[in-house]
């Protein structure tokens, strides 16, 4: 009689065999990890979660001095603190997610080496727990925003602001996709880790954070229209849409570019999950 088995462990799994049901089964673990991260991240600090507000505030002040003051880059008539803060909040979330997900295997090798659970839980946890921090920073943004609105400054939100949840989701998706690809590569060659932190820094300047996108309009770099080139950066449309929606800055980048970002996110996520799934089976031997 042929025995029935609930699972079979084989040397290799098929490329497209991603067990999403299993991840769903472990959803409680995901939530507990998120809770652990939030509860413990500022244990034994005096200011605690206040750091989440101090960090972006300091960054904004530095930008105001360096880019706004010394370099004299205009902000399209938007109050400088508000302009920089909008970009800093989004970017902080994006880069936090990237950094944390890209180190998944290396930082968790201890726990991964002792117990099995779907490895994808870890990067997912990073993206979700960073949302809390992001939420607090958005709160700061709202406070500053209301302050300017009351004092009569010209901040004109419009309907595109409703896209905000979608923008955050896309930002998270892009960070997750890129992060897990890098984490899969760093199990064997740590070079990628060094390279990647460098790339993230450069990436920030290729995103309209310290300058408005309108500044590059009409500029040509080596025969290529710099404006379109910048929009090829999949996070640029997200930043621009948010700034346009919340502050009325510049003009809407257009649905085409948003769709481009979305498609980019889907491709990078699918690719990332596949490569991650392949690496997770044997990474303990090489990490």
């Amino acid at each position, binding site marked *: 009689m042929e025995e029935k088995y609930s699972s079979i*462990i*084989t*040397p290799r799994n098929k490329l497209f065999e991603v067990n999403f049901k299993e991840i769903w089964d472990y959803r409680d673990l995901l939530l*507990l990890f998120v809770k652990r991260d939030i509860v413990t991240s500022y244990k034994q600090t005096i200011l605690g979660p206040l750091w989440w507000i101090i960090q972006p505030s300091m960054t904004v002040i530095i930008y105001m001095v360096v880019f706004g003051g010394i370099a004299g880059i205009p902000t399209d008539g938007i109050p400088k603190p508000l302009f920089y803060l909008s970009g800093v909040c989004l970017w902080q979330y994006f880069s936090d997610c990237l950094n944390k997900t890209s180190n998944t295997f290396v930082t968790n090798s201890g726990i991964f080496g002792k117990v099995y659970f779907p490895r994808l839980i870890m990067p997912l946890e990073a993206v979700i727990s960073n949302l809390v921090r992001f939420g607090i920073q958005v709160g700061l943004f709202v406070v500053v925003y209301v302050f300017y609105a009351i004092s009569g400054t010209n901040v004109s939100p419009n309907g595109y602001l409703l896209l905000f949840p979608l923008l955050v989701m896309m930002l998270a998706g892009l960070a997750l996709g890129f992060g897990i690809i890098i984490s899969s590569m760093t199990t064997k060659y740590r070079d990628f880790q060094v390279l990647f932190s460098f790339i993230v820094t450069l990436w920030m300047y290729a995103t309209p954070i310290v300058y408005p996108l309108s500044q590059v309009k009409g500029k040509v770099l080596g025969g290529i229209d710099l404006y379109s080139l910048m929009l090829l950066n999949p996070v640029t449309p997200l930043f621009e849409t948010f700034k346009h929606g919340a502050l009325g800055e510049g003009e809407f980048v257009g649905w085409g570019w948003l769709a481009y970002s979305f498609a980019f996110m889907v491709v990078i996520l699918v690719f990332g999950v596949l490569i991650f799934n392949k690496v997770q089976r044997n990474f303990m*031997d090489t990490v």
Partner: protein
Amino acid sequence: MPTVLEFNNVSKLYHLGKVNTQYFSDEFSRWWTTKVRRKEDPFLKIDETNDCSHKSESHYIWALKDINFKVEQGDVVGIIGKNGAGKSTLLKILSKITSPTTGTIKVNGRIGSLLEVGTGFHPDMTGRENIFLNGAILGMRRQEIAKKLDEIVDFSGCERFIDTPVKRYSSGMKTRLGFAVAAHLDPEILVVDEVLAVGDIEFRKKAIDKMRELSQTEGRTVLFVSHNMTSIKKLCKSGIVLKNGRMDYIGNIDGAIDHYLMKNPVLESDAAFPYATKRRGNGALRFQYIRLLSKNGLERSVFEVGEECVIEVGFEATDALKVCKESRITISITYSSQQAVAWLSSSLFVDRIDSNSTTIRFRIPKLMLTEGIYNVKLYASMNSESADEIFDAAQLEVIYHDYLGTGKAPPKDVTSVGHTFLDYAVSWK
């Protein structure tokens, strides 16, 4: 009983030395032969045995090779082997931490693996929070843990500290808590690595009882790795001996332990015998401890010439001992570990070791040895075959303290005084 676990030709290849860059050429040549030329992997052909002590030319090693066995439901399997024999690799593959290089494992039921106690404990979180986290890591649902919380806390015996961060816990408490969570995991197949070594004897017993209960009353299957033969013998029904990554023996647990002990005459050092230099035997009897006692029952290592000395030896005998024709426990007192000075044996009194006892006492009313440091060797035999033999099981120091009541002492030169002090008197005519 239905089969719940089946290993089919499972092998695992590991790289030696650095994994990357240095062997990029190997990686390329592997890719070239397997993917482009579609031939067999050149490195998988290496038929190297996994032996840590010999240096080999190859960069690859079979940590496991051709492992084949089946486990039936409710069985408790002990996995025995020297360090590096492949025990942990086997458990890691079974727990899906790494995948086999070749072969398949068919599993029927949820596997709960305990390769380390308290994985994922966060030092800043309380015991209660960590129970939830650790349980979820092991694959439990939140409600499941909540339902069993009281049982887990009770089993761990950490009730008073349950709302204290675990960084304030002692390592033993962490082990207790971690094991308590895993024991309530309720998997169909429980995989336990050598994790109980940290806990005290009481807890180890509790843990083993719990595992036995799981297998006997609930029909759970247990795979258990340990170097502690007593625990293995207590808990397991069948055993697998691994040697250099291969299956060396499979069968019932007594056979497995005998096989292992006979193949590995020098056993792991034992805390009970810190001075021991060598230990061998087939394990039919195992010495547990040795104590040198004074007249009033106090443990000592230094005795005066002519003092009363009791040598107490604890042992644990197997069933084989009960049926054998002849067995004995012998103590040899030696000087410099070589020169026999005295020989004491149970065989001068009885033919067989009393297998219902766990200790034997040799009472020496007058210890008539000269001043010096002696070694005690323990030896047990069954049908004149060595069951357990421990060289230098204890040290015995003898000092001269005016035994003759003359206020004088013999010279300290061993070559002239020898090892025996005779009770004598001097008279003049």
